[in-house]
């Protein structure tokens, strides 16, 4: 989580980014404004083409929605971006660097972290352990540092710092009261919160949320959305895969519609809402 002092600066950055949207439309293009670029991404499984030349960008500091009917290739695209799958063709660029085909952990270390469609908590670890796992480059992740007397004090010191941050994030997500519970005992909604909190602790620039609201009750959904908006204001970039059209339309400023593995159209929610092709795709017409 960013320090409170950073926030005004980030807000300014957001305003600049909003102006940049216009700049992009007129052909001026700086990679800083679009941390994630996907170009001509292709992936097929056996004879079935799941992603077929998907090309889009995600603007810095935005909350971008990725929608599409079932089988449009949303999750596959996500997996291709985050390295869980290797694309057959196309490139993924993050912060100006080509990350195509990198391992998931390399991509996560570059500052792009994902959550999973079905919350994948580490069930036999406590919420606190789940959270403590996430921060990057922990000294104690090197075996000898964790074991050697003396050097372990360094590790202890860092653990103490991390622990404070973990509790801050737990407070931010209002899950401090379940901190000592095993993650496997949490309810579905709490798992989603835990997953987002955990992803946040890796100190990412960009969060990819795969259906974060699926199976979450309306009250918690509202809560989660508040968190997302609050974080966005702090300068995080979000790419969101979601089934729920209304939710995307009401919360995202930019929407990308995938259909049969490629981008059907993209634009503001209003533009998407009135797009005939999108309606047809969702209603199963032959596009």
């Amino acid at each position, binding site marked *: 989580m960013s320090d409170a002092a950073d926030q005004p600066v980030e807000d300014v950055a957001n305003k600049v980014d909003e102006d940049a949207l216009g700049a992009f439309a007129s052909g001026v293009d700086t990679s800083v404004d679009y941390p994630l670029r996907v170009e001509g991404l292709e992936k097929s499984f056996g004879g079935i083409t799941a992603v077929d030349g998907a090309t889009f960008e995600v603007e810095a500091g935005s909350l971008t929605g990725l929608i599409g009917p079932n089988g449009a290739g949303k999750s596959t695209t996500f997996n291709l971006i985050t390295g869980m799958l290797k694309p057959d063709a196309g490139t993924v660029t993050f912060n100006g660097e080509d990350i195509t085909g990198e391992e998931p952990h390399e991509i996560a270390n570059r500052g792009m972290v*994902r959550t999973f469609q079905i919350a994948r908590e580490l069930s036999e*670890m406590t919420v606190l352990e789940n959270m403590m796992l996430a921060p990057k480059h922990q000294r104690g992740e090197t075996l000898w540092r964790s074991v050697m007397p003396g050097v372990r004090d360094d590790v202890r010191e860092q*653990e103490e710092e991390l622990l404070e941050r973990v509790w801050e994030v737990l407070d931010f997500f209002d899950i401090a009261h379940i901190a*000592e519970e*095993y993650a496997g005992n949490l309810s579905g909604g*709490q798992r989603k919160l835990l997953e987002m909190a955990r992803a946040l602790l890796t100190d990412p620039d960009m969060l990819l949320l795969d259906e974060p609201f699926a199976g979450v009750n309306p*009250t918690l959904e509202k809560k989660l959305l508040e968190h997302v908006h609050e974080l966005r204001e702090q300068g995080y970039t979000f790419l969101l895969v979601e089934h729920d059209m209304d939710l995307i339309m009401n919360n995202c400023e930019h929407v990308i519609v995938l259909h049969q593995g490629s981008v059907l159209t993209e634009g503001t929610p209003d533009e998407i809402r009135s797009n005939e092709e999108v309606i047809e795709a969702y209603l199963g017409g032959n596009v």
Partner: protein
Amino acid sequence: MSVRDDFTARIPGGDAGLIVLVLLGTYLAYVLAGFVLGYTLRGQLNSIATLTFYIGVFAMLSLALNLHWGYTGLFNIGIVGFMAVGVYVTAIVTKPTYVAGGAAQVGGLGLPLWVGILAGMTAAALLGLVVALPALRLRADYLAIVTIAMSEIVRFSFLSGELQQFQLFGNRVGFGGGSGLILDFAPPLEALLRGVGLWNGYLGFVDAFQVLVPRNPKPVVDGLVYGLLLLGFVAGFYWLLKRTGESPFGRVLKAIREDEDVANALGKNTDRFKIKSFMLGCALMGLAGILWLVPQGAVTPNFFRPRVTFFIWIALIIGGAGSNTGSVLGGAVFAAVLYQGPRYFQNLVSAVFPNLDSPSGFGQAISPLISQFDPVPFLLYTVDSIRQLQLVVMGLVLIWLMHNRPEGMLGYRKETASVIPLSRPKSMTADGGSDDSVRTDGGVDAAAQGGETDE
């Protein structure tokens, strides 16, 4: 289960106290059995030494396996292969160089034992690396197949006539084939005591021991002191693995066990963590093998059959995978009850009923049961062949455990994977930000307040 929690929490000294308590109880049972059997003091001391030896080796091995399976979720069923490589490499490095006409068919490099032990551990770790590199990228089951195959390949390599003798650095060395190797060098205890200059003092102590054991006390004292040394090694393993587990490193291992994709998506290079964990465990298995077999004076490849691997698995399952304390307890209980126990039980029965005439074959044992409903001959036959039935008993125990207590003795305890306790730091306000309106989803918040960390 909460009763057990209370019980383990009430033992003074915590985990160490629990281990000591179990060990004392086991020794007491063995000493009592020794009294019934009419053992002399020498016999009692010998049986304690043997028991300690097996407790030591099984505790070490199940601790090492716990790192693989309990922490990292690596399904290693080739433990005995890593032990074998440890022992054989130690033997080749440490055996005196070949002299024509000597007792040994092949020689070694004639280096000190500690060099041999380090070489053996390194070889086991490197074998672990070789096995891990292709297998760790596959699903867990494939690692199991690869490891058990590897352990058999290792055994057959040591059996093979081709490798019976070969030249290494101009020395005639070899694995000795089916007849094995004579370990014609000072055993670990002697090497250690000579190394620290206490050998003469030790011999003096052995002489003083004649007060208790008049004739030839050295084997008795050797056994007892070596048993103590092994317990020291168990403590070392425990210390090392506890620190490994209770650290950010151990946290990543745990995460890999739970869901490798998640750990990877959070930026952890899971392959590297798995390989490190696997190699460390393999090196420890090699060391445990060395400490088990080198004092025996000779080693044959057929000791390293897969069943030893499964003994260690049973020990870990009894103790509870995931808990280091449980691993030690499991090793101790397995050694005392399932490994050494049946023999003692048989001796006890024949000591208490000296005139029992057990039937000599299965037919004579079973026919009275069928024709006259007389179960006595069958029972006698069972007791008489209890050593052969040892594996059946182990299987039954395993089945019972899987049904009734799959988490073992202490597997329900989760040792928190962090260097520090994870409670809210004192510098932060006690209930900052936890306003009650957030409990929107009817979770487990009430229970969580009383959640214990088990440390």
